[in-house]
């Protein structure tokens, strides 16, 4: 099994084998996080453009750390400091970046499909770091790695995702990925954030507006961030969200005994999650952050190493060169 495509645009288009290959490759990079010296020279001389057309701290730093630990250089483009505000089109900006000869571009954009648009037009690998309401594949992969480490498997799990499902690309990437492993996914949140079309994304996806009914039997509970600006009074005041959906120790106890608790961050303690739950032994939040760097190292490594030729040629070359 190998990784045969040029870009990472979403988990929807990854096969089960490709996902497992990526997770297995990530294992070697997890181990490097434990080295006293975490910097490799593997991608020395390669450069990575981090093009964030939408604000992000965690994902950008995580990709930046991944690139740095592989020895690659990074070039940063942030929307507020770029020509985008001067009316330059996305493709012109990207072509300008491409002319600087990077080896890979990591894109976050408010428009769904922007990374796909760039992938078709640029001659370098494109990694989707979040596009609109569509996908955030590296988050889906790091969540899968964390679940597999915690529970020993990805197959056949009950996964409950709680929060603003409608606006969550994290939820979409997780649904696409986990469904390939036969997981049963329950989406939970206020009705206004629970669009019926979510059940069309994959088999075995159900909607459940009541948290008490969504939790029993769950092996994994994923709490999504609630963007306070979306809590529109009087439709749903924050106090009401807290009352119905905050993950408290009592509610977490309704899931399976050692259910893995996940949150993509940033967490708002006291809103979507009770601080006691956030710091409980069931919480995987910090593992998710550490695994994020490992998964992104694996993605960067796989998309930038090696000359074109494919898996068969790689096998013919043998595992070691002298």
């Amino acid at each position, binding site marked *: 099994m*190998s*990784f045969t495509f040029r870009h990472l645009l979403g988990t929807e288009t990854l096969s089960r084998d490709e996902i497992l290959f990526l997770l297995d*490759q990530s*294992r*070697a*990079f997890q*181990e*490097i996080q434990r*080295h*006293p*010296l*975490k*910097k*490799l*020279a*593997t991608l020395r001389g390669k450069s990575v453009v981090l093009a964030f057309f939408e604000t992000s701290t965690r994902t950008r730093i995580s990709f930046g750390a991944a690139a740095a630990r592989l020895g690659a250089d990074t070039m940063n483009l942030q929307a507020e400091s770029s020509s985008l505000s001067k009316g330059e089109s996305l493709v012109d900006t990207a072509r300008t970046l491409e002319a600087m000869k990077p080896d890979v571009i990591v894109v976050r954009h408010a428009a769904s499909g922007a990374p796909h648009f760039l992938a078709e037009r640029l001659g370098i690998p494109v990694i989707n770091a979040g596009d609109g309401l569509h996908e955030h594949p590296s988050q889906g992969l790091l969540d899968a790695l964390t679940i597999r480490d915690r529970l020993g498997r990805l197959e056949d799990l009950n996964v409950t995702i709680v929060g603003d499902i409608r606006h969550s690309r994290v939820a979409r990437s997780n649904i696409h990925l986990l469904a390939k492993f036969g997981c049963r996914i329950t989406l939970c949140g206020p009705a206004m954030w629970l669009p019926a079309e979510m059940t069309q994304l994959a088999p075995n996806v159900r909607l459940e507006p009541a948290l008490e009914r969504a939790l029993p039997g769950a092996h994994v509970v994923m709490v999504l961030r609630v963007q306070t600006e979306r809590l529109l009074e009087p439709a749903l005041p924050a106090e009401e969200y807290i009352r119905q959906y905050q993950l408290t120790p009592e509610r977490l106890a309704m899931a399976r005994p050692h259910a893995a608790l996940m949150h993509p961050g940033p967490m708002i303690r006291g809103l979507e999650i009770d601080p006691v739950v956030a710091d409980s032994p069931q919480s995987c939040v910090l593992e998710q952050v550490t695994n994020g760097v490992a998964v992104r190292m*694996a993605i960067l*490594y*796989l998309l930038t*190493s*090696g*000359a*074109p*030729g*494919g*898996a*068969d*040629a*790689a*096998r*013919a*070359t*043998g*595992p*070691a*060169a*002298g």
Partner: protein
Amino acid sequence: MPAREKAQLLNAAETGRTIERLAHEIIEKTGVQHGVALIGIRRRGVPLAQRLARTMRALTGAEVPIGVLDITLYRDDLSLAAGHPVVQSSEIPFSVDDRDLILVDDVLFTGRTARAAMNGLFDLGRPRRIQLCALVDRGHRELPIEANYVGRRIETRADELIDVRLAELDGEDRVVLVSAAAPPAARTGES
């Protein structure tokens, strides 16, 4: 074109005896004190290190720690390699600081694997000393690297390959000289 066997260099008994002799030499020259540990380079360095450790324990009664090193991320030819060389985990369950380490590999050829392995070890700490043990030294060095322990020195042509077969991975113990299956640029002769 499949690889063609030209000559058998070591049969099963000779392979076993060669490994035993290497274990004796390591004990003689380095001892098992000072916390000596063996680092098997994936893939065939790993079963070799295990066998050396077993023999060393039988001879001295001392347990010899074994680590496993994958050098993929330290290769100097990644941008030339076709496809994506698959990365595997390294498993070195002890501190390398102040330790005598012996790198174990099946074939010493260009020396680039040993160079990569040393870089990998430096990322883990500061060993007291690193030595190199190879079952076969086939010459054609491209770097100033020599092994401290060599099972068998064999003169080869650059386009030939040494195929070390070990029971743990290949179902038999044998070392054979084969003609290259592909042009020398694509095959390196160390596996």
